[in-house]
Every structure is written in C-alpha cells, then in structure tokens.
C-alpha cells in the first residue's frame, strides 16, 4: 500500500536534519529516510570543532552537533527511518528499501527534500585496488565512529580540509602520518588545519602525487613522485614511503542519482563538484516539489549545508502550510551570504553564478594585525591568516578584547590593553590557531592549544616550531584542563627568544624507544636515568637494570652501555671498567651438564 507523507527528507546529515527541523517547526509531518546505521550523516565521525558562529555551532564538535540536531528533530515529531535506502524515485511512487527488515515501502510525498550528500572520489594509480587504499573519510569513520585503525603508518593524498583534518585525527587516534602529498602548489584546505599537523612534524609535500601502491595482498608501501605543471609525474623523482595505509582525500562528488531520478535537471559544474542539480536561490530544483541542500547541491562545508537545509525546509513548509515564512527564509539567506563572502567560497560563487544565483564577495577585513602587543605581558597571539567565516575568538572573549572587524570573514585583531591572557579564546578557536606568550626575565612562557594525552607538570619536553622541527628543550609549566571542550592549554617554559618559534612539543618518552639490551629489553633512556641516579659503573648497572644478564651475555649491549656511560660521565671508554666476563658464555641446558657428568670423556 502506498503511504502518503507531506514531506519526505532523504538523508539525515546536517542538511537533511536542518531541513526536517525547519519543516516540522511549522507543524508539517516529516519523514526522514537514511541508509546509515545512525543519524547525522558524516557528523558522527567529525571530532573537530566547527568554524562559523554560535548560531551554527561554532566551536562545537561535529558529532555533538549531529546528536543535538537529531534530538531537536525528534522532539519536533520528525519520524526517522534509518538503515533504509531510497531505491528509486519513479513517476508515481518512491520506493524505500529497509535492509534490516528486508522489506520495501512505497510512499508518496507532497514535497521532497533530497540531501544525499556526496561520495569520495577515487583516482587512478598503479595497484590502487589493493586493500589499504581507502577513502580518507572512510578511515575517519572507522577510527572515530567504530574506534578501529586500519593501519599504523599513513600516507594522505590531498591537502584539502578533509586530508588535513583526517591527518590530525589519525595522530589523535595514535597513528603515524608519514606525509601528505598534494599535487597543486599550495594547500587547498585552511592553513590553520595545515599548521596543526605541520607543527607536529607531518610533512606536506606540495607538487607531489602518488604513482603506485606497493604490495601483493595489501598495501606495504607507496611510491610518490613530484609532478610538473600539468600534474604529470616527473620521471626520476620517485620516492618510496613505508606506509601500510593510503588515504585518498582527493575531493567529493555530489550523490545526484535520486535527484536525477526525480526529474531534476542536472548540469556539469566543476566548481560545485561535478554533476549537480540545477536549483534556484530557494534550493528548488527544476521540479516544483523537489528541493535539495548540502553537498548534493555543491561540495562545501557542513555549516553551509545546515543553512541550505533550513532554506529548503522553510520553503517547503511555506508551500505546504501557506504560512508566510519569508522572514525565516531571508534570515537564512543572509547567513549564507555571510558564509560565502570569503576566498574559500570563490569556486562555489562562480559555480552558482552559472545558475544565475549570485552571492556577493568581500566586505571584510583582510589586513592582518601588526601590533604584537606589549612584551612581558601574558597575551594572545592569533595566527589566523586567512579569511575564514569564523568568529568564536570574538564572541568568547570575556573582556571584549578581540574583534573580527564587523564581518565574520574578517581577520581578528586583539586589543592588547583589554586582553588579560585568560586563554578562553585559545580553547574555543576551531583552528587551534591562538597561542599565549609572555616574555619573562629568565625564560618565556608559551601557551598552546593541546588535544592529546596531557603531559605532567614539570615534565621536560622537546620544543617544536611551526614546521615540527626541534628547536630546544623546555618544561611544562602549567596545564589548564578543559574537560568539556577538550582543547586544553599547555603552558611551556621556553628559552628566551623562542616564544615566537615554539608552537608544539613532543614528550621525551615518545621519542625514545631505543633498545640497548635486546635480551632484557632495556632502553637507552633507562640506562641514562640510572647513570643520572649515580650508577656509573658497568657492574652496578648490570645488577641494577639486569643489563647484559640475558642469554647473550652482554655481546650486544656491553660496548653500547659503556659508550653511554662515557658520554654521560665524560670518562673515555678506555678508562672505564669493562665489567666481568663470567661463564657460561652461552646458556647450556642442565640436561647437557648432567650427561657430561655421567660419561667422563671427550
């Protein structure tokens, strides 16, 4: 039997959820259908904080936004059919396939909002079919939603926002990122995202691409190479990387299938991500009762997907109820206008122009602040060089010391008379681009936003600059935990003059896993620590750490241990006691000893 609904929303991602909220707010019954296991689309895997402003959840993490929108929709009476795919939109009926109950539903809807999102692009290179070549978003789903890492050592292909974000989140999940390769000559994503991984030592190789995956049954490595101006690999520049997973972050393509089946006219607009449905400024397609929103309409950010969802939703509600919702609609259009003024929306603006949908550009502050603030005062340094639509620094500052110049895309300025160095903006900034500095008489303080396992106060750490290079040794001066937002502030004591360089740190033990004694698994740092405690003689170390007491009898570790003692104490090896050489020189079984005793012969 064909069931009838007033409004059908296809896709429970940010666009679909906001669309369903906008419709249901006006008393219209809404059914949301989504093939995923949980609602939220790609939000549940997004552990990063959103850009934008408070109205659209700036500084809130994606998975929390997904939960909130879903709850809001449910509270408004929106019905959800999860694990259900719209298998076809026919002239007379829409067919849903519920794969859990293995059954079909037939429905008719007065209005349809299609928010099917996008899928990851695939590119060709040798052996790209091997297991271990995965979409970057796929890896993000597995590690953040299902808590499994499909490898240890990753190569990321593509330095757009997805590649950069996934690289950072891989580090948070405990994996290694060997490199990010990017065929063009610049990072495509936000520089603040790039800076987060660069300062942790992940190289971003511009004008590089992947040419081959190495392995027979799964990825064991990757061959990368430089590319020329037409993005063709340059012979002779190949380099092998030892990685077990290759993440492709080479863009998304709109999932247009259902929109096309609904009869919406499709056009190829590369700036919008490829084939997209033609639509007007109200998100209406060429079919009167079919609307679209989100990545299906143009590959963009989740914030704009939410706004488009509202625009489409209010329009549908207005048509169904006859209510005048023009105020809601124009408010959302204004939001969208603000979000799309910046340089990162250039492509979308250009693409939409081809439909006759125009968005204004500019009107925000582009000149970075020159004032560095008074030396000696604890104050913020904002390293936010691009015009991104984002203002939590401004709205979170308790003393009103930060402003972005009246337009959300503007570069932030700090009023150093008002800044009290409290660090609230450091914790809020979605780009982790705000630091604290203070020059003191003997050393300087650098406060950094930190989203990893916290170090101990007083711990000695290696200081890293913006490129992840070690620039010196420092100490953890203070930690301000942010148990709710999870962006903590770690204050570092750094040598004077380094306050402008230090932007991250690495803990000593993470760097040192150098084994000296293979039999007893004793590390170099354990030996160094013991020497610092006063055990400066080989025999003492042997008794204290069991070094050279394993089956090899010290063949492997004796000289190494002596050289460490020599380095630490300054006494040449020739003047050190080499330690005794006791039998047995190799382990022999008791059985052999007993046998030897029985028959007294050689």
């Amino acid at each position: 039997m064909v069931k009838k609904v007033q409004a059908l929303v296809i896709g429970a991602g940010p666009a679909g959820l906001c669309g369903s909220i906008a419709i249901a707010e006006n008393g219209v019954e809404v059914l949301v259908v989504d093939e995923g296991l949980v609602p939220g689309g790609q939000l549940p895997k997004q552990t990063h904080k959103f850009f934008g402003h408070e109205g659209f959840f700036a500084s809130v993490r994606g998975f929390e936004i997904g939960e909130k929108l879903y709850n809001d929709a449910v509270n408004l009476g929106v019905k959800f059919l999860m694990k259900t795919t719209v298998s076809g939109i026919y002239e007379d009926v829409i067919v849903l396939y519920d794969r859990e109950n293995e059954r079909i539903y037939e429905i008719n809807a007065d209005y349809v909002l299609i928010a099917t999102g996008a899928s990851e692009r695939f590119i060709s290179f040798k052996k790209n079919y091997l297991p271990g070549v995965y979409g970057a978003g796929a890896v993000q789903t597995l590690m953040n939603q299902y808590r499994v890492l499909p490898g240890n050592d990753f190569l990321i292909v593509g330095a757009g926002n997805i590649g950069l974000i996934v690289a950072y989140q891989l580090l948070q999940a405990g994996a290694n990122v060997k490199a990010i390769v990017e065929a063009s000559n610049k990072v495509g994503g936000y520089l603040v995202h790039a800076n987060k991984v660069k300062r942790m030592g992940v190289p971003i190789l511009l004008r590089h691409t992947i040419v081959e995956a190495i392995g027979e049954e799964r990825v064991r490595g990757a061959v990368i190479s430089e590319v020329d101006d037409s993005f063709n690999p340059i012979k002779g520049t190949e380099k092998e990387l030892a990685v077990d997973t290759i993440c492709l972050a080479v863009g998304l393509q709109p999932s247009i299938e259902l929109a096309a089946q609904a009869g919406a006219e499709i056009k190829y607009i590369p700036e919008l991500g490829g084939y997209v449905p033609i639509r007007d400024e109200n998100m209406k397609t060429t079919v009167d009762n079919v609307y679209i929103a989100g990545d299906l309409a143009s590959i963009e950010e989740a914030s704009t997907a939410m706004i488009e969802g509202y625009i489409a939703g209010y329009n549908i509600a207005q048509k169904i109820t006859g209510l005048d919702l023009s105020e809601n609609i124009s408010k959302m259009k204004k939001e969208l206008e603000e979000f799309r003024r910046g340089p990162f929306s250039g492509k979308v603006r250009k693409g939409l122009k081809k439909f006759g949908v125009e968005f204004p550009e500019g009107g925000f502050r582009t000149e970075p602040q020159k004032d560095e603030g008074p030396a000696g005062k604890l104050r913020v340094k904002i390293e936010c060089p691009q015009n991104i639509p984002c203002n939590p620094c401004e709205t979170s500052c308790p003393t009103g010391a930060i402003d972005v110049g009246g337009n959300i895309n503007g570069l932030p300025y700090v009023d150093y008379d008002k800044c009290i160095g409290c660090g609230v903006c450091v914790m809020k900034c979605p780009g982790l681009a705000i630091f604290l500095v203070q020059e003191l008489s003997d050393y300087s303080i650098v406060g950094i936003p930190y989203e990893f396992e916290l170090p101990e106060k007083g711990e000695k750490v290696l200081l890293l600059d913006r490129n992840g290079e070690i620039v010196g040794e420092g100490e953890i001066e203070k930690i301000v935990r942010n148990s709710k937002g999870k962006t903590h502030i770690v204050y570092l004591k750094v040598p004077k003059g380094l306050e402008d360089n230090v932007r991250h740190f690495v803990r000593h033990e993470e760097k040192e896993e150098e084994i000296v004694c293979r039999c007893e698994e004793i590390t170099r740092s354990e030996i160094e620590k013991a020497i610092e405690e006063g055990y400066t003689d080989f025999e003492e170390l042997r008794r204290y750490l069991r070094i050279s007491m394993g089956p090899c009898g010290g063949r492997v570790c004796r000289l190494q241990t002596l050289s460490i003692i020599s380095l630490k104490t300054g006494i040449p090896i020739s003047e050190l006691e080499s330690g005794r050489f006791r039998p047995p020189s190799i382990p022999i079984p008791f059985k052999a000893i007993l046998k030897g005793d029985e028959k007294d012969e050689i």
Partner: protein
Amino acid sequence: MSRRVVAHPILGDLIEEEVIEFEFEGLKLKALKSDTIASALISNGIDIFGFSESGKPKGFFCAIGKCSSCLVVVDGVPNVRACITPVRDGMRVERQKGKGKPVW
C-alpha cells in the same frame, strides 16, 4: 597491525560493551556489539574482504555504504555491504569472490 583505538583525547576511553563472536572464513573471531562487519574485520587485522572477478584482493573503500567495494557473503548470502551491516553473534562471514553466487 590493525587495532582498536582504546584511549582517545576527544572521545574518551572506549566504553566497555558486550563482546560477541562471529565466524570469518571458518575462524572464530571476536567483535564489539556496536561493530559493523567491516570494523570487526579490521579490528581483527583482516583487510581482505574478498576478491574481484579476476582474483584481485578487495577491501573497503568508502565505509559509508556508497561504493560497494566491501561486499561479503553473510550466512550464505552474497553482496552484503560489510561497512553498513552490523555484525551479529554467530554470524558466518565469508570473502566474496567476484559477483557472488546467487541464492534462490
């Protein structure tokens, strides 16, 4: 090599949940109740979900049900998308070869 993310600076520690047992190519493997077949296989270090018609190894690609790269045979039924199918206690999963044999 493949592993579970137990501690996480943003998501917190992995919440303890029911462990179930399923079968993969005759091997008894463990999974968490919230796992998909794909995440269960990956957590057990299994990357090859099947083979193409010509015998090339296949794994997942998109993990959100769009690419159909992760098709496996579940309880004798082929073409099940491992990435959006929850794993079940006692489930029998096999690698799919090619297009899979139809079950009538």
